[in-house]
């Protein structure tokens, strides 16, 4: 296992060091190179944050350090892709999706270049570094860009499976990766299919549809409430685009409530995407969107933020109960 590089891992009481997602990212790219894929990687002065230093040391000829020039990095990645390279370029999600939105749209997505955009340290995971570093709009921005797939994996194994499963995907993908301390959801591996949610159970009371880091807390909350006699299901909707509409419609046919959970503004994110499907199909399940409620997130250590925004297991459990009780009132 690689050394976890972080200045502030003390903040996490439940750090799982078996498969944190950012070192997994670098390792998965190394495996893709070893399997013969024409992979290159680049970053914007964050190779120690995102683990790409491992890749850089192993394959210096395949690594590009762009310095703090994110827009140049994205446009250059599009140029690289025209030569047959599969470029993986990584920086903080807040900078990648927002600062480089136009480069992503024009050079990568419109030009149909199979660039992999790795937005890491998503949502509120950068904690006290400041609201500027929180990525709570990136799903809304990226999923509105045609030709671009949007993937938000729950943990290291899911990320590794996703990177491997999509290496030959002919169009660009925006991967949304947490900060690398993710608790493991998938101990026994994942069968990742782009556009296909992973069903952890269908409940008659509620189906949770979650993506990314909150999947772990949602699963724990589901298990606790099922033990308490409720009927709660969960879908890990890692592919936010293309979206698994079939799974959403099946869940809405069975459950009274659909609860979406995401560390993102509830406007335009996963909750917005699910709302579009339910509304267009005229399905009757009540939708509750849980996430950041159209506000700028506070500054605090990440654990405090997840507690404050009720995005940890206890918070999601409370939101679930409120939804169930609200529905039966």
């Amino acid at each position, binding site marked *: 296992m690689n050394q976890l590089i972080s200045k502030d891992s003390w903040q996490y009481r439940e750090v799982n060091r078996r498969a944190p997602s950012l070192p997994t990212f670098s390792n998965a790219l190394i495996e893709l190179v070893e399997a013969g894929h*024409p992979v*290159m990687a680049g970053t914007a002065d964050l190779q120690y944050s995102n683990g790409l230093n491992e890749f850089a040391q192993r394959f210096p*000829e*395949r690594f*590009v350090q*762009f*310095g703090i*020039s994110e*827009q*140049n*990095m*994205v*446009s*250059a*990645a*599009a*140029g*690289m*892709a*025209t*030569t*047959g*390279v599969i*470029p993986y370029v990584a920086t903080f999600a807040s900078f990648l999706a927002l600062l480089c939105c*136009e*480069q992503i749209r*024009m*050079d990568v997505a*419109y*030009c*149909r270049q199979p660039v992999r955009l790795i937005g890491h340290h998503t949502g509120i995971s950068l904690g006290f570094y400041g609201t500027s570093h929180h990525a709570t709009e990136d799903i809304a921005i990226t999923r509105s860009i045609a030709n671009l797939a949007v993937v938000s994996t729950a943990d290291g194994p899911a990320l590794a499976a996703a990177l491997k499963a999509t290496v030959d995907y002919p169009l660009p993908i925006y991967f949304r990766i947490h900060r690398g301390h993710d608790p493991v959801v998938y101990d026994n591996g994942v069968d990742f299919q782009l556009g296909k949610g992973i069903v952890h159970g269908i409940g008659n009371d509620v189906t949770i549809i979650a993506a990314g880091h909150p999947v772990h807390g949602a699963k724990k909350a589901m298990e606790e409430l099922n033990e308490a006699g409720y009927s709660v299901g969960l879908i890990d909707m890692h592919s936010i685009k293309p979206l698994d509409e079939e799974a959403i419609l099946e869940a809405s046919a069975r459950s009274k409530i659909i609860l979406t959970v995401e560390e993102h503004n509830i406007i335009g994110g996963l909750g917005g995407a699910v709302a579009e499907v339910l509304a267009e199909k005229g399905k009757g399940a009540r939708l509750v969107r849980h996430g950041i409620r159209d506000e700028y997130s506070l500054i605090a250590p990440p654990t405090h933020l997840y507690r404050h925004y009720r995005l940890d297991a206890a918070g999601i459990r409370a939101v679930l109960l409120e939804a169930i009780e609200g529905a039966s009132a």
Partner: protein
Amino acid sequence: MDRNNDPLSDAQLEHLRERAKFVRLETIRLISIAKVGHYTSVFSCAEIFAALYYDVMRIKKGEPAWPDRDRFLMGKGHAAVGLFPILADLGYFDPSWLDSYTRLGSPLGDHPDMTKVPGVDFSSGSIGHALSNGVGMLLGGRFHKRDFNAFVLLGDGEMQEGQVWEAALSGSSHGLSNLIAIVDRNGYQLDGKVDDILAVEPLDEKWRAFGWEVHTVNGHDIHALTALLRQVKADKGRTKPCCIIAKTVKGKGIDYMETEPGWHLGFLGAEDEANALETIQNTVIS
């Protein structure tokens, strides 16, 4: 064709002059279909187009996707109307496409589109991306051990975009000696004179400070321009990228366009168009 540093023959010079004239005439013809367009932006770089496509760049007729070809990128994408006739002339697509310019469903619009037009090495329209695209192509080429060059034509107003300077740093930092930027220094942008709007001078010092080799040339002197491009391309000892500041005149070839800056976007109309075609036919631009 893969040129060396030899002097140009009179026949080669005459051919390039004739091709630059062809670019201007075709630009007028195509804009008459659209009823509005960027005559003057093309006229300032017609000699640059001719020198690159008909002499300097390593390309294969009829093979727009040849992996070892030199790449051409247009920061000033709105001059695409002058590029399309060249690409058709090189056999990259059927010349009849030109007649559809800007019509519903045509692959040919005001900016070059790689998803629709064979021979367009990268799409443009958003100012300031092209030099970065070129940097990426050369990094990819280096990985594949291909030695092609990337020629990036930039507008002088484009120098106002921050990303150009990110890319300039990137080019020198990564030692991309096969990256050649050509600044079409015609002095004007949409709203007026470049240096009245947001001054970019001293351009040569700026590029030099960013780690580039810099040359200045009269961008309409086809002999000097082509000789310089040949020399820069043939110089295998250079470790830096290279910037050529081509001093040009916006609207070169039509006197009232040269002196009235309002022609960035315009339409001649039938009578003036006939006069302009005749003027270009009868004008020798050095």
